[in-house]
């Protein structure tokens, strides 16, 4: 078994190198035989990587502690589901996960209906270069099949914080997003090498890019939810460097998804779109470098080691290679673009949107790297934590929300101010009325009020778009309202899918603003039977019990809860003392209603009759998760039905515009 495991890794290197060479020979000699051979090699890579993955899962599931990886991340008493998810708990396993996903994506591509596309050997070569790198890194310093010197009786176990359903979904979804971005990158570079400057690569990769973005969104939302439930500090986003690293490509791909629309319609921004997709791909490598290098302190880091250096070298190589390709084709890219008609147009607003998203990405990157930069330049490390990012990103994200509020109202090509005002009047009025209402209701914090009312403005704009579209359909086709809504979305899934995503973002924005500005917190020591209040809740300490489950000691506090005088049951914050882990773990108790979360942590206890509780009331946090689900639905709508067409460009070019 040990031999088979190791063979899969080394065989992976050999096959990936062969496939790469076969592709290059096929391209140079115009030989279908070599290209077919490379395709066959990709199939072998899928087999080899899947075999390695199944082997690792088998070793994890059967607790084969002769393997270093199994002994480091699992133990005998670990539930089976977490034994299996330990696959991606460590460095070596996560590298294998990345590799197997990359092999699967490459296989899907080279055996797709586009397999005869002249771009495909180039695309396949770029992906194979990535696969080769990952197999090599595994062989050098991240072998999941490395053996222990002596076989331990039991493994070290999995960090209790990772024993959560989030562990099943968060890493996989993020990796699906990260790896997915390699596909549009490979197509962009392939198109450039072939000097095909049209939007074909965008058309071919639209679904891949949206899928990658969907998984990045899902990964980040699940990560936030997991942190909120498990980490016990009451937040969902800590602006940790590795969290930021997953947010960076999300921002740049969001910019790309908007700017490609301009390329599709007007043939503009070709260099920009290529740069954005290259940047997004490089940022995925950057994130991987951060997790594995240990250069920055992070809760997600796998620790330091030479792996970081390998990623840095590969990242630099891919970056220089991409820049070289872009520079040598720059004159070609510049040609054939259609000029912009008006400053006041959807094209311009999309440009502004791109600017803000990229500025946001730059701010996050700068803040994440500043501790390193400051240490390198001045010798003193300056920390950049959540308060910095909150301050810097708040105005940038506010601008983005305002832009989302006005952008759907601006016409393509040339908008008129009168028409814009006519369309904007109701959503704007909704925003202003909400601001006045919030102030009258005594809502504190002018910035939060501005943020919330801007979000309502944005939300109202999108609702209006749906209402206007539905009304127009009902007038024109005499359909009933439900059919009209269905057909409206069905006829233009890309547009209305995007609007649904924006509505999801509006909900998230409300949750983020409210939970930041209006959260209440109290640290309270209470005796048995004693009550205290926080917000609309009254909490009573009813007792402290100790139990044992699978060798783990659990201390549970029973807290009677009333909400506005009405009994809403008992909540039970816990502290778990694991048999195989040195530190205790917090199990948060959360009581959720539509407008706020009661968040309880059992902080400490003196005896069975005196405990200290950390209690928070976080307003509208559940809206963040609801918004995330709506974003996913919207993305799925856009993904399933959207069509990309370059007809508009050619029509416009032919007519000389």
């Amino acid at each position: 078994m040990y031999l088979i495991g190791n063979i899969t890794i080394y065989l992976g290197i050999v096959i990936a190198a062969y496939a790469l060479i076969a592709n290059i020979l096929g391209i140079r000699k115009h030989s279908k035989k070599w290209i077919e051979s490379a395709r066959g090699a990709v199939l072998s890579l899928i087999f080899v990587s899947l075999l390695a993955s199944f082997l690792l899962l088998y070793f994890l599931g059967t607790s084969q502690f002769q393997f270093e990886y199994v002994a480091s991340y699992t133990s005998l008493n670990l539930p089976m589901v977490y034994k299996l998810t330990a696959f991606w708990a460590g460095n070596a396993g996560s590298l294998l996960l990345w590799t197997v996903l990359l092999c699967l994506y490459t296989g899907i591509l080279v055996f797709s209906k586009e397999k005869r596309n002249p771009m495909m050997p180039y695309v396949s070569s770029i992906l194979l270069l990535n696969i080769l790198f990952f197999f090599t890194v595994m062989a050098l310093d991240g072998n999941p099949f490395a053996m222990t010197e002596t076989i331990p009786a039991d493994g070290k176990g999995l960090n209790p914080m990772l024993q959560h359903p989030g562990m099943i979904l968060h890493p996989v979804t993020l990796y699906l997003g990260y790896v997915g971005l390699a596909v549009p990158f490979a197509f962009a570079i392939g198109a450039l090498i072939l000097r095909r400057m049209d939007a074909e690569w965008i058309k071919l990769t639209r679904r891949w890019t949206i899928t990658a973005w969907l998984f990045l969104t899902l990964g980040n939302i699940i990560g936030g939810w997991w942190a909120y439930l498990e980490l016990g500090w009451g937040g969902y986003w800590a602006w940790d460097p590795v969290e930021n690293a997953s947010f960076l490509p999300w921002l740049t791909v969001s910019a790309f998804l908007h700017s490609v629309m301009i390329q599709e319609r007007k043939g503009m921004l070709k260099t920009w779109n290529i740069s954005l997709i290259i940047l997004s791909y490089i940022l995925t490598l950057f994130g991987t470098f951060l997790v594995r290098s240990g250069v920055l302190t992070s809760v997600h880091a796998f620790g330091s080691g030479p792996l970081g250096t390998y990623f840095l070298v590969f990242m630099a190589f891919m970056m220089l290679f991409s820049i070289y390709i872009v520079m040598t084709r720059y004159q070609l890219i510049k040609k054939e673009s259609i000029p912009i008609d008006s400053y006041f147009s959807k094209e311009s607003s999309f440009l502004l949107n791109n600017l803000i998203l990229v500025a946001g990405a730059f701010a996050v990157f700068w803040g994440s790297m500043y501790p390193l930069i400051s240490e390198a330049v001045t010798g003193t490390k300056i920390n950049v934590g959540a308060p910095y990012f909150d301050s810097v990103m708040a105005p940038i994200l506010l601008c983005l929300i305002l832009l989302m509020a006005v952008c759907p109202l601006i016409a393509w090509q040339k908008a008129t101010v009168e028409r814009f005002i006519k369309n904007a009047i109701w959503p704007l009025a909704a925003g202003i009325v909400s601001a006045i209402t919030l102030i009258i209701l005594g809502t504190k914090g002018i910035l939060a009020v501005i943020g919330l009312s801007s979000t309502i403005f944005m939300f109202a704009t999108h609702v209006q778009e749906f209402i206007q579209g539905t009304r127009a359909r009902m007038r024109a086709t005499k359909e009933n309202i439900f059919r009209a809504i269905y057909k409206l979305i069905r006829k233009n899934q890309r547009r209305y899918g995007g609007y649904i995503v924006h509505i999801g973002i509006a909900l998230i924005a409300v949750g983020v603003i409210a939970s930041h500005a209006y959260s209440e917190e109290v640290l309270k020591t209470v005796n048995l039977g004693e009550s205290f209040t926080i917000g609309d809740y009254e909490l009573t300490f009813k007792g402290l019990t100790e139990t044992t489950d699978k060798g783990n000691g659990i201390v549970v506090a029973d807290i009677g809860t009333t909400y506005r005088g009405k009994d809403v049951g008992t909540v039970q914050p816990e502290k778990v003392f694991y048999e195989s882990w040195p530190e205790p773990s917090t199990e948060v108790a959360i009581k959720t209603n539509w407008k706020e979360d009661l968040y309880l942590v059992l902080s400490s206890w003196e005896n069975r009759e005196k405990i200290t509780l950390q209690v928070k009331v976080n307003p509208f946090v559940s809206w963040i998760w609801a918004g995330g689900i709506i974003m996913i639905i919207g993305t799925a709508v856009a993904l399933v039905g959207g069509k990309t067409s370059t007809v508009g460009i050619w029509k416009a070019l032919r007519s000389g515009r």
Partner: protein
Amino acid sequence: MKMRKIVFLASLIILVIVPSVATAFTENSQEFRNVIEQLDMQGHADHDYSTCTIQHVYFEEVLEMLNGGMSEKEILQSYVDEYGQAALRIPATDKSGWIAWGMPFAGLTAGIAVVGAWLKKVKGKAENDTLIHEVKWESDTEREIAEKIFEEERRKHF
């Protein structure tokens, strides 16, 4: 008269001292939160308070200092004096932190300038390349007919 003055002064002193003793700072005081939120606590700021011993040490220290009469600013400065700027979660807001705070906005400004210049360039090109016809209706009837045609086309599209 003298006695009344003594009583008045004594009452004033009691009024000033007693409340200050009674309002000892706790972990729930806003002043305490203001200080704690700015401390990096050796990278433990975002840890779970219930399990983080480092946070406990900082909480106790800050409470002691607040109750000892130090202001928020003095407490933060005492940590900066001891550990340098790394004691805080944010770069300094004075001259030494300008680059950290200013760079994102400098980047945004540079971006606006580049996009502005590029827009001007492509817009200028558009004006040179195309003739934009302003539609002028000769009569309201003509405009109405055109609108009806547009409406008919729209219906076909649906």
